[in-house]
C-alpha cells in the first residue's frame, strides 16, 4: 500500500527577513489527508511564518511549499484553490451580516452560486446561533467570529486548512466546540496544519505535534508516541534548552531528545 501524496508539504523551507532575522530554518513537514498537524512553539518560533509561506504572503528564502503537489511560489493562485485559512483574530466585515460575509468569501473561494439555505447549513454546523445568521458581525463575540471564520473555511471545501492560533483567546466552551469541528473536518479527509500555543489542545487534536524553536523544528511526536510521553515536559525542556541544541533538518524529523 502506497502512502498518499501529502496535501501540505514544506520542503527545506527557510525564511530570512530583510532585517537579517532568520525566522524559519530548513523546515520540513508533511500533512496528509485526514491528518491534523499541530505546530507548537513560543512567539517568534516561526509558526506563523510557516503559514504565511504556505499562503504566499511572503516568498521563501530557500525551499518550497507544496499544496496538493503545486509549488505555491510558482503558481500561487492555483495552489490557493486547495487551501482554506482561519486566522487568530477573525474580524471580518463588521457592517455585513454573517451570511453576507460568508457569501463574499464563498465567491472568492470559487463557490459563486450558494443558496441562503446552504450558508445557513454551514453556520448551523459550526453551532452559530440561528438569530446571528442575519446579524451584523460587529455585534459578534470573538467566539462567534471564530465560528464564522471556520464556516468560511468549510464552505471553501479545500483539501488543506491552515489555522493560525485559532483557539487563542477563546473561552473553554468555544475552544471545545472548535475542537469538535476540527475532528469533523479531519474525518472528511482534510489536511489541517494548525499553529498553537496551547499544548493541551495540540495533544488532543494533533495526529502529529511538532515543536518549533527559533525558526527550527526541534521535535516531532505522533499521537501514539504522546500516549506514553508527557508533552508538557518535553515542550518545557525544549524551551529551556540552549539554542540549536537539537534540530531536524532531516525531512523525516528525527526524534532527538534535548
Amino acid at each position, binding site marked *: 500500500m502506497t502512502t498518499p501524496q501529502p496535501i501540505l508539504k514544506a520542503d527545506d523551507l527557510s525564511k530570512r527577513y530583510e532585517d537579517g532575522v532568520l525566522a524559519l530554518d530548513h523546515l520540513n513537514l508533511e500533512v496528509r489527508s485526514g491528518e491534523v498537524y499541530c505546530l507548537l512553539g513560543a512567539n517568534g518560533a516561526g509558526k506563523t511564518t510557516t503559514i504565511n509561506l504556505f499562503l504566499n*504572503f511572503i516568498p521563501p528564502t530557500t525551499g518550497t511549499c507544496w499544496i496538493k503537489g503545486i509549488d505555491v511560489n510558482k503558481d500561487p493562485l492555483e495552489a490557493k484553490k486547495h487551501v*482554506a485559512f482561519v486566522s487568530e483574530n477573525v474580524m*471580518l466585515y463588521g457592517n455585513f451580516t454573517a451570511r453576507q460575509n460568508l457569501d463574499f468569501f464563498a465567491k*472568492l*473561494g470559487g463557490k459563486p452560486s450558494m443558496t441562503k439555505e446552504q450558508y445557513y447549513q454551514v453556520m448551523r454546523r459550526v453551532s452559530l446561533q440561528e438569530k446571528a445568521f442575519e446579524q451584523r458581525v460587529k455585534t459578534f463575540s470573538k467566539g462567534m467570529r471564530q465560528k464564522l471564520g471556520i464556516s468560511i473555511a468549510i464552505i471553501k471545501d479545500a483539501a488543506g486548512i491552515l489555522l493560525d492560533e485559532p483557539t487563542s483567546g477563546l473561552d473553554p466552551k468555544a475552544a471545545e466546540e472548535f475542537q469538535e469541528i476540527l475532528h469533523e473536518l479531519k474525518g472528511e479527509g482534510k489536511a489541517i496544519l494548525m499553529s498553537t500555543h496551547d499544548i493541551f489542545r495540540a495533544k488532543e487534536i494533533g495526529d502529529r505535534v511538532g515543536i518549533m524553536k527559533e525558526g527550527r523544528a526541534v521535535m516531532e511526536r505522533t499521537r501514539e508516541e504522546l500516549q506514553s510521553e508527557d508533552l508538557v515536559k518535553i515542550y518545557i525542556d525544549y524551551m529551556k534548552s540552549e539554542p540549536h541544541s537539537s534540530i531536524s533538518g532531516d525531512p523525516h524529523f528525527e526524534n532527538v531528545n534535548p
Partner: protein
Amino acid sequence: MFAAILKKELLDQILSPKFLIISLLCLVLVPASLLLNSSSYTNAFREYDAARKEARNSTVIFREPSALSAFGLGLENIMPKSVVFSKYQMEARGAQVQSEVLGNINGKVDFVVIVSFLLGLFAVLYAGTMACGEKETGTLKLILSNPVKRSTVIGAKLAGGFGVLLIPFALSTLIGLLLLFVQGFPLFDSGNAARIAAIIVLSVLYLAALFSLGLFLSTRTHKTSIALLAGFFAWILLTFIIPKMSEPIAGLIRPIPSEEATKANRAQVRTQIEKEKGKALAPLMEKYLPNDGRGKWDWAAYTKARGPVAQSYEEQIDQTLQKFDAAYEQKKSARRNLSLNLARTSPASAFIQATLNFCRTGVTDLENFSRSLQTHGILLFRAVFKYSFQDSFVSDDGKINRSMGGDSSPEGKIDYPAFRFGSSSFAETLRSAALDLILLVFFNLIFFAAAYVSFSRYDVR
C-alpha cells in the same frame, strides 16, 4: 472575482457611518453654495445691466458678470466691474487688486472650492484606510488566502470605493442643478450646459486622482491612524502649501516692480515727453494765448496751429506708453504663468485652474479681458481721445507754468467704438484647459500605478 470584491466594497462603504456624514455634508453644502452664488450672480447682472443702459456711448465700459461664477467665483471679484478710460490711462472700478490671483482662487466657498477642498479631503481619507484598514482587521489576509490576484483587489477597491464617493457628489450636484433650473438660472444659455458638464468631468477626474493618492498612501502604511495622518498631510500640501507657495516662489524667481512703482515710472515717462511737447508748443501759446494781458486769445487759431506740432509728441506718448504697458504686462504675465505652472504640480491647482476657465472666471478670461481693454483703449484713442488735448507750457528751467486743455474734434457726433469682451468660446476654453486636463489624467495614472505597484508588494501579514 472582481465583481464580488466590487460589490463588497460598495456595500461595505455605503453601510459605513462616514458615507452618511459625507452624504449629509454634500447634500447641504453643494446645493446651498450653488443657490447663494447664483443669487450673487443675478444681483451682479442686474447692476451691470442697469449701469450699461445708463452709460451708453461713453468712455466707461462695463464687464458682464459670468453666470458660471455660481459654480466657481475664481477671479470674478478681482476683475473690474467697470473701467473708465481717459486719454492715456484706464481706471478699473469695483475690483480687488489683480496681483492676488491665487489667493482669490482659493478664498471663496463655491462648488469648485467644495470639490477641491472638502471632497478632495474626503477622497484622500476615504481611500486612505482601504488597504491598511483591511490589514488591521485581518480581512486582507483572508481575501488573499483565496485565488485572487492582487491587481483584482486593488482595481475593485478603486472602482468600488470611488464609486461610493461619487454617489453623494452626483446626488448633491444633481439637486443643486435642479434648484438652479427651478430658479431660472441660465443653465442652457451661451453653452453653459457644456461648460457645466466639463466642470463635472474635471471634478470626477480630480477626485479620482486624490482617491488613488489615498489608496497609494494606504498601501504604504500598516495602520489606519498613520494612513489618515499621511492623507491629511498630503491634502494640506496639495491644496494649501503648493498653491499658496507658488506665487511667492515665482516672485523670487521673476521679480517685477510693484504696481505703484510702475505707475510712477509711467507718469514720469509721460511727463518727460509732455515737457518736450510743451517746449515745442510754447511759441504758439505765446502767440495765440498770451498770458500777460497784452492781447486777446485766439483759441481757434491755436487749436489749428498746435495740431501739426503736437501730433508727433502725442503719437510718441501713445506709442511709448503702449510699449511700457506691454512690457510690464509681459513681465506680469510671465510671473503669473510661472506661479500657475508651479502650482500645477498639485492636482488641486490643476483642477481649480481648468475648472475656473470653464466658469469664465479663470486666468484665461482675466487675460482676455485685459487684452480687450487694451484694444478698446486704442479704439477709443483713435475715435475720441486723439481730439482732446492737454498742453503744458514749460519754462526754460523745465517747470510747467501753464496747462491748457481743449477739444479739437471735428463737428458732428463722435462714433464711440463698442466694447467687445472676447469671452472665450468652449473650444478656446478647452484648449486653455488642455494642459490641466492632461495633468489630471497624468496624476490619475501615476497615483494609481503607484498604488498598484505598492499593493502588489504590500506586506499583508
